[in-house]
Structures are given as structure tokens and as C-alpha cells.
């Protein structure tokens, strides 16, 4: 594979995984400065995707494929269009700065290498999600992001809160992933292909399919859990237990957008139906409002940001659900803007926490002189978040208002939800960026000062790029936004982006309203916080607590279930097994009515009768044996009778083997039984004997009848004929049985002798392990013995 051009995308996808392996070693050598080297990996990936931008912007899409599991139609294929390219740019670009930031944030942490490793694993998986063409591949990477997210949230695994959040995130996103897999399989059934590129070209096939409803619900479950939509939103704020670089990267800029990515990706084939345009805006809108309202209540910087992230994701889902071109363009713009400003703000919050020792907004103030660069980054990012010109956030907000207002049917409702959400978002942006820095200097746990370059390089770059993309709106539109919009919307959309609105319209009016009311809300934020707090306390129960109840309920229920089913009584287990076997034998015969026919006792010679009867006598003697010797000898009688029966029916080899085995069995049984000083007396109650007798009798009867049915069927002689024909002519052997064993089915025999060998080893181990732990008797017993 070449190192440049489209084919190099394979290398770009592989690189993070390689970096994940190397990171711990590198970190051991270079300490936190390893971040500089490691950041080069995502930077190079970013450059690679940047080099593809011009061809993608010109309307090209690239598909590359490697076969992976061809029997199941799983290929390792890549699909590059405007949507995936832009996502890949965000993942690698922000990733580079997050790696740098993590270098500073976890400086001196003993597990920094492991952290980098997890981070790169995530980066690779996330790239896989957005680049995968095959649905199964997409699913695998999707689950990998859940798993890496679990590892990163639980990074500080000594704290209960982190462990809980990690488990919660994994359970919520993982179970959504399962639903998604089912959805993907249905898409494959309905659309006839597992390749995204082919599905996207299939037009209305999925929408017209009878499976559409099921597909829609399953895909939504996957997307909603991943993108923290109401009522699954609760895991995201809890995920703030993770170190800040993780919050900035996974839980705002990239991973949580995977759900939105999926909805956008499938919009051309699943979107624009009544279901789509109702369900998505409802859940998106609810998430938006729930996010900002609960966000207002928080005083922790990271939690405030987390809830605005939930709100932003809601906004994105709502706009995707609106399914019209302008709304989608707004969503795309907002997605990019959000990744930039939210990543920056999270890092800013982390820096404050790192340098000042707290991130509680009520305990912070007046940091502007101590941390000027961080302050600058915060303000720039918050301006974009608040939607003020000339930032990308402003353009995004203009267009999304335009799109929301223009939505057919539910335009007013969507616009209202977007307006309310944005007003509170404005207030929150102002609070996050201004509160810690303005006003009187407040004494903080640590003496606050500016962090090292590793800590401020990321936030300031991301915030400035939000500004630059806004200033060069036309170029941004051509290279990044429009290709993605056309990928999401299906058609081509060449309208240019303008920083300055061309004419007065509803969107501008709403923007002005947002700013005015936003300022008002910011000034009254303490009152609002108290109000929301009181309301939430009044409600009391939330899905977060519900999750705990669910988990506890699961454990308790399964415990009860296990105690009912697994009583610890061996006899019960075995009875259950044998009853099941008997049912398996009888039920088919009963339902089909194919009972075997009784053919009578004819044509059995005297010798045959004699040995059959001898075997039965041996059996009876075993069952009634009162002492060990009788038992062993009777077992031998039965075994030898069976050996003779083999001879009588033309199997001398079997007979010989059986003779030898029976001899050795008797020897070994005798050896063990001399040690095992036990009487083989039956100690069961009469009742138990009857039950066991009935069970054993019916299984035996079942097998006898099965065997009779089998032998009454016509015989397919293909295999015996094959062996007979070729045994001498190609395998040079006159003993067919031996030829089969060592030649025709030699591989089986290898397996079988391996089993014999393992049994030998196991016996050896069992006998050897014994002498080791001669347990000292408890003192009480020793005393008793002494006393006696």
C-alpha cells in the first residue's frame, strides 16, 4: 500500500493502534514529553485527510476494500466522502491537541503511558467508525469506542464514582450497540448489502421495506445511547469522572457525536419519513431542553459543560430529524463549531482545575491576570458557543435557525426549542468563560498561575480555529461544510456561506433575541440555578438513579434465579439433564408418530443369545452388588460380553481392543477400589429409587427405540463403499478399520490420541498435587486428641 494518496488511508487507520502499542514504552523513556512525539501521529493523519479534502470537495467519493471474513460478507472497506472526511479531520486534529494536553495534564502520573495507550486505541476505533464502509466493521469499531471509553472513564479505578460511571457508560452504550447490530443486520436483509456505499445508492429500498420500522427503532437506540439523547442522557455527565482530556475528546468532540454521525450517514436512506421527522425532533428537542435546564443548575465547570454537550447533541439530532437541507447544513456547521469550542472549553476547565485546585464556579474568580492565555482561549471559545459574530458558532446558529424555522409542519416548535436552548446555552457560555476570570480574586486551594504550554496550546488553537473558520466562511463552506452537507442530504448543495447575513430575516431576529435574553439569563443565573435546583429536588427520581435500581435489580433477580435453578444438588442436576434427554428422544417420535416397528426375536443364534444374556446378568449383578469385588467382576463380565458381541458381528479389531480395555479397567478399578474403602451399597430411599429408575428406564427405552428407528431406515452405503474401494488401491492396506484410523481419518486420530495424552497428564497432576497441602488441623481438634 502506498504512503500517499487515498490508499494511505489504511495506514492512517492503522497508525493510532501502532501508537497505542508504542506509547507506554515511549512514555517511560521521555516522561510527559512523549506527548510531543505522540501528537505527531494524529497530526500526520490530519495532514493526510487534509490532502484528500480538495478531491472530496470536488464531489468525489472514494471506496477501498480489503476482504476480511469473506464467508460472512465482512470486508475491511473504507468509504470516504464529505461526511467521513470532515469527521476524520476533527478526530485527528482535535486528537493531536488532546494528546498534547494530556501530556501536561497527567504530567508525572504513574499510569500516563497507559492513558496514552487507551487514548490512541480510542482514536483508531473512532476513525474506524467514521471511515468504515461495511456495516459489520462499523459495528466492531463502534463497540471498540464504547470499550475504550469505559477504560478511559474508569482510568482512576480506585474511586468508586469512576468505576460506577465507567460501568454505566459501558452498559448504556454497549446495549445500544447490540440494538445497532440487530439494526444493521436488518438493513443488510432489507437492502441486500452490508456496504454503506451500496446501501446509500439504493434510494428508497429501505424506506419502502416492511422492516423500516424495526430498522429505525434499532438504529435510533444505538444512536441515542451513544449520543446521550434523552432518556439515555445520564451517562454523559457521569462520564466527567474521566480525566479532562478524555472529557474534551471523547465526551464532547468526537465519540458522543458517533450517534449523530450515524443518523446523518443514514439520513439519505432512512430519513425524510414521518417517523424520522417526528421521533428525532421530539427526542432531540427534549434532550436539548433537559440539557440546558439541568446545566444551569450545576456549579462544577465540567458538569456545566457536560450538560451543554448533552443539549448540543440534542440540537444536532433535532436538526437531523428536521431532514431539510438548510437544517442539515446548520447541524453540520454547528457540529464543527461545537467540537472546536467545546473541546477548547473542556481543556480550559481542566487547566483551571489543574492550576487552581477546584473547578467549582462559586469558588473561582479573578483569575484573568494569573492565567491570561487560558482566559483568552475561554473567551474566544465561549463567544463561538454563544453564537456571536464573527465566529463559526454565529454562522451555524444563523443557518440552523433558518433551517429550523423553514421546517415544514413543525417549524415553530423546533424553532422555539432551538431558541430556548440557545438562550440558556448563551448564559452558560458566559458563566463558564467569565465567572472564573472576572471579578474579585478568590482564594483557591492551589496558588493559581498559567499552566505550561502543553496545557494552553490546545485550547487556544481550537478556539482560534473557530474564529478563523468564521472569518473565512466561504472557504470553509466550500472545502468542509458543503461536501458534508451533500453527503448527509443526498443531493449536491452548492450555496455559499456568508459571515455577514445578506438580508434581514427571521433567523437574524432570533439571533438578536437569543443574545438579548441570553444576557438577561446570565445576569440572573444564580436565581435560575436555585429555581431549577428546587424543581429537580422536587422530582427526585431520575434515570441516573433508575440505572442504579436497574443494576441492583438485575443482580438480585439473577441471584434469586440462580438459587432456584442451581440448588447445588448434583442429583437434581443430573435428573434434569436425563429428563431433558428423554424428552428429546420421545417428543419427536410422539409429534411425528414415527414409532419404530417391533420386528421380533427372530434369527439370533444360540451364541449371540448367550452373550447378550450374559451381559444382562452382569448388569444386574453390578446394580445389586453388595461389595466391591462383586461390582468389579460383574462390570468385567458385561464388558467382555460386549467384546464377544463385537466379534460375532464382524469386528475383530473392536473386540480385541475391548478385551484389552476391560482387562485394564478391572486392574485399575481394583487398584482404586482397594484405596477407596467404600461399599457400593445403594443408600437411596425407595421413593428415590423409583424416580431414578423411571428416568433411567425411559432414557434407555428412548435410545433403544431411536436405534431401532435408525436401523430400519435405508442404509446409505456411500462411505463404506468409498473406504472399501480405495483401502487397498490407494492406501495399500487390507485392514479397512486400521486404514481409516491411520490414513483416511488420520487427523481425527491425532485429536484422539491428544485426548488420551491429556487424560494421562490430568491423572498425573491429580495424584501429584495431593501431597502438597497437608493441612494443619485446627487447634481445637488437636487439643481434643491430646485430651483423649
Amino acid at each position, binding site marked *: 500500500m502506498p504512503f500517499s494518496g487515498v490508499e494511505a488511508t489504511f495506514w492512517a487507520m492503522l497508525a493510532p493502534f501502532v501508537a497505542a502499542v508504542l506509547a507506554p514504552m515511549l512514555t517511560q523513556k521521555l516522561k510527559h514529553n512523549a506527548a510531543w512525539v505522540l501528537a505527531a501521529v494524529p497530526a500526520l493523519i490530519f495532514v493526510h485527510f487534509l490532502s484528500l479534502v480538495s478531491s472530496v470537495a470536488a464531489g468525489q467519493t472514494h471506496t477501498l476494500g480489503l476482504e476480511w471474513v469473506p464467508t460472512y460478507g465482512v470486508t475491511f472497506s473504507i468509504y470516504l466522502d464529505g461526511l467521513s472526511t470532515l469527521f476524520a479531520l476533527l478526530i485527528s486534529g482535535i486528537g493531536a491537541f488532546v494528546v498534547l494536553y494530556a501530556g501536561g495534564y497527567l504530567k508525572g502520573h504513574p499510569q500516563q503511558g497507559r492513558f496514552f495507550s487507551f487514548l490512541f486505541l480510542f482514536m483508531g476505533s473512532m476513525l474506524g467508525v467514521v471511515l468504515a464502509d461495511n456495516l459489520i466493521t462499523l459495528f466492531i469499531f463502534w463497540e471498540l469506542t464504547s470499550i475504550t471509553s469505559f477504560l478511559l472513564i474508569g482510568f482512576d479505578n480506585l474511586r468508586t464514582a469512576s468505576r460506577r460511571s465507567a460501568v454505566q457508560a459501558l452498559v448504556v452504550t454497549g446495549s445500544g450497540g447490540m440494538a445497532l447490530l440487530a439494526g444493521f443486520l436488518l438493513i443488510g436483509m432489507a437492502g441486500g448489502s452490508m456496504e454503506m456505499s451500496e446501501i446509500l445508492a439504493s434510494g428508497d429500498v429501505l424506506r419502502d421495506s416492511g422492516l423500516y420500522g424495526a430498522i429505525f427503532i434499532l438504529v435510533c437506540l444505538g444512536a441515542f445511547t451513544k449520543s446521550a439523547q434523552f432518556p439515555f442522557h445520564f451517562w454523559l455527565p457521569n462520564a466527567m469522572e474521566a480525566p479532562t482530556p478524555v472529557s474534551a475528546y471523547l465526551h464532547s468532540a468526537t465519540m458522543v457525536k458517533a450517534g449523530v454521525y450515524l443518523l446523518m450517514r443514514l439520513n439519505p436512506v432512512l430519513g425524510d419519513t414521518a417517523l424520522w421527522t417526528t421521533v428525532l425532533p421530539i427526542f432531540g428537542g427534549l434532550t436539548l431542553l433537559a440539557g440546558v435546564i439541568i446545566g444551569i443548575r450545576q456549579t462544577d465547570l465540567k458538569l456545566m459543560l457536560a450538560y451543554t454537550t448533552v443539549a448540543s447533541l440534542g440540537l444536532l439530532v433535532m436538526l437531523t430529524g428536521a431532514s431539510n437541507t438548510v437544517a442539515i447544513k446548520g447541524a453540520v456547521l454547528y457540529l464543527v463549531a461545537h467540537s472546536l469550542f467545546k473541546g477548547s472549553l473542556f481543556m480550559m476547565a481542566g487547566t483551571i482545575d489543574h492550576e487552581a485546585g477546584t473547578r467549582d464556579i462559586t469558588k473561582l474568580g479573578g483569575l484573568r491576570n494569573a492565567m491570561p492565555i487560558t482566559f483568552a482561549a475561554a473567551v474566544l471559545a465561549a463567544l463561538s458557543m454563544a453564537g456571536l459574530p464573527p465566529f463559526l458558532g454565529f454562522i451555524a446558529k444563523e443557518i440552523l435557525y433558518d433551517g429550523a424555522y423553514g421546517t415544514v409542519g413543525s417549524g415553530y416548535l423546533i424553532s422555539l426549542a432551538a431558541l430556548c436552548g440557545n438562550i440558556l446555552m448563551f448564559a452558560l457560555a458566559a458563566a463558564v468563560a467569565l465567572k472564573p476570570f472576572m471579578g474579585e480574586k478568590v482564594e483557591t486551594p492551589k496558588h493559581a498561575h498559567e499552566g505550561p504550554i502543553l496545557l494552553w496550546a490546545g485550547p487556544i488553537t481550537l478556539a482560534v480555529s473557530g474564529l478563523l473558520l468564521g472569518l473565512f466562511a466561504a472557504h470553509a463552506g466550500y472545502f468542509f461544510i458543503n461536501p458534508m452537507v451533500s453527503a448527509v442530504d443526498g443531493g449536491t448543495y452548492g450555496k455559499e456561506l456568508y459571515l455577514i447575513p445578506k438580508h434581514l430575516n427571521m433567523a437574524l431576529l432570533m439571533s438578536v433575541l437569543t443574545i438579548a435574553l441570553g444576557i438577561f439569563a446570565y445576569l440572573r443565573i444564580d436565581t435560575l440555578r436555585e429555581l431549577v435546583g428546587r424543581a429537580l429536588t422536587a422530582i427526585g427520581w431520575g434515570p441516573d438513579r433508575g440505572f442504579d435500581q436497574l443494576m441492583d435489580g438485575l443482580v438480585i433477580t439473577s441471584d434469586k434465579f440462580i438459587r432456584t435453578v442451581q440448588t447445588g444438588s448434583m442429583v437434581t442436576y443430573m435428573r434434569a439433564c436425563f429428563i431433558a434427554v428423554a424428552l428429546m428422544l420421545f417428543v419427536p417420535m410422539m409429534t411425528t408418530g414415527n414409532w419404530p416397528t417391533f420386528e421380533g426375536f427372530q434369527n439370533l443364534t444360540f451364541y449371540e443369545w448367550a452373550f447378550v444374556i450374559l451381559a444382562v446378568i452382569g448388569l444386574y449383578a453390578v446394580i445389586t452388588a453388595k461389595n466391591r469385588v462383586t461390582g468389579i467382576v460383574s462390570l468385567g463380565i458385561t464388558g467382555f460380553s460386549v467384546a464377544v458381541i463385537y466379534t460375532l458381528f464382524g469386528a*475383530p*479389531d473392536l473386540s*480385541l*481392543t475391548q478385551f*484389552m*480395555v476391560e*482387562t*485394564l479397567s478391572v*486392574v*485399575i478399578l481394583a*487398584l*482404586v477400589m482397594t*484405596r477407596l474403602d467404600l461399599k457400593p451399597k445403594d443408600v437411596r430411599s425407595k421413593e428415590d429409587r423409583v424416580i431414578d429408575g423411571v428416568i433411567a428406564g425411559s432414557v434407555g427405552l428412548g435410545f433403544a427405540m431411536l436405534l431401532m428407528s435408525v436401523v430400519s431406515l435405508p442404509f446409505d452405503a456411500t462411505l463404506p463403499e468409498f473406504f472399501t474401494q480405495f483401502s487397498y488401491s490407494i*492406501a*495399500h*492396506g*487390507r*485392514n479397512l*478399520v*486400521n*486404514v481409516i*484410523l*491411520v*490414513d483416511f481419518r*488420520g*487427523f481425527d*486420530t*491425532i485429536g484422539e*490420541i*491428544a485426548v*488420551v*495424552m491429556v*487424560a*494421562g*497428564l490430568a*491423572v*498425573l497432576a491429580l*495424584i501429584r498435587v495431593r*501431597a502438597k497441602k497437608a493441612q494443619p488441623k485446627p487447634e481445637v481438634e488437636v487439643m481434643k486428641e491430646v485430651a483423649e
Partner: protein
Amino acid sequence: MNTVIFRTIAPYLSALMMVFSIFVLLRGHNEPGGGFIGGLIAVSAFAIYGIACGVAAVRRSMVVHPMSLAGIGLFIAVLSVLPSYLFGQPPMTSQWLIFDFLGSELKLSTPLVFDIGVYLVVVGAITSIALSLEERDVD
């Protein structure tokens, strides 16, 4: 069981059985017999020897640990899979060398090698089991 007569005869009997077991192994491809049966006969030989003269004597006579014998057997069996690769055939295709040996036809083949492997595994593993059970008398 531990009579003078038995103890005197047992080594000879065992030796005879060993020879017989190898005979059964080698003729297995054309007559009743083969690695499994031959191996079991050899195990019986060792068992008789062990009962008569003690486990230590058997271990001495076997030179290596019975499980090592089984390991060697499995190794030989797996080796016999490989020659067919030399001729570009699917693995385990049998290879035959047939030539005159003192006037009679002698056939050497990979299935024979394989059968010897089976024989050794059976002898090793089951002798090991039998011996470890007999041995517990001592401790």
C-alpha cells in the same frame, strides 16, 4: 497374587507380550491389530510386570517417564503429517516406500509411522495412569 512363581514368570511373560504387541502393531495395516490394540497389549505387559515386581522395576525398564513416551509418540504422529508437504500434496497424504528386503516385500510408509506414534501415546499415557495408581501403595 505375589507368589514366587508369578514373580519368576512375570518378566518373561511381559517380554513376550511386548514382542507380541509390536507384532500386532506392525501387522495392523493388513490384519487385525494396529497402534491402539498393540499399545493396550503393551500396557498390560507393563501392568503385569508392575504387579509382580513393583513399580520401580517398571520405571527402570522404561528408561524414560511414561508421559515423555506419550509425548514422543504424539510428536511422531504429527511429524508423519509433514512429508506430504515436500511433494506439494495436501497434508497427511500417505507416502509409501516399497522395496525388497531379504526376498520379502517390505513397505515403509507414513501411516506406519503414524501408527507407531499412536502406539507410543497409548502405551505412555495409560502406563502412566496405571503406574501412578499402583504406586500409591508406597506413600
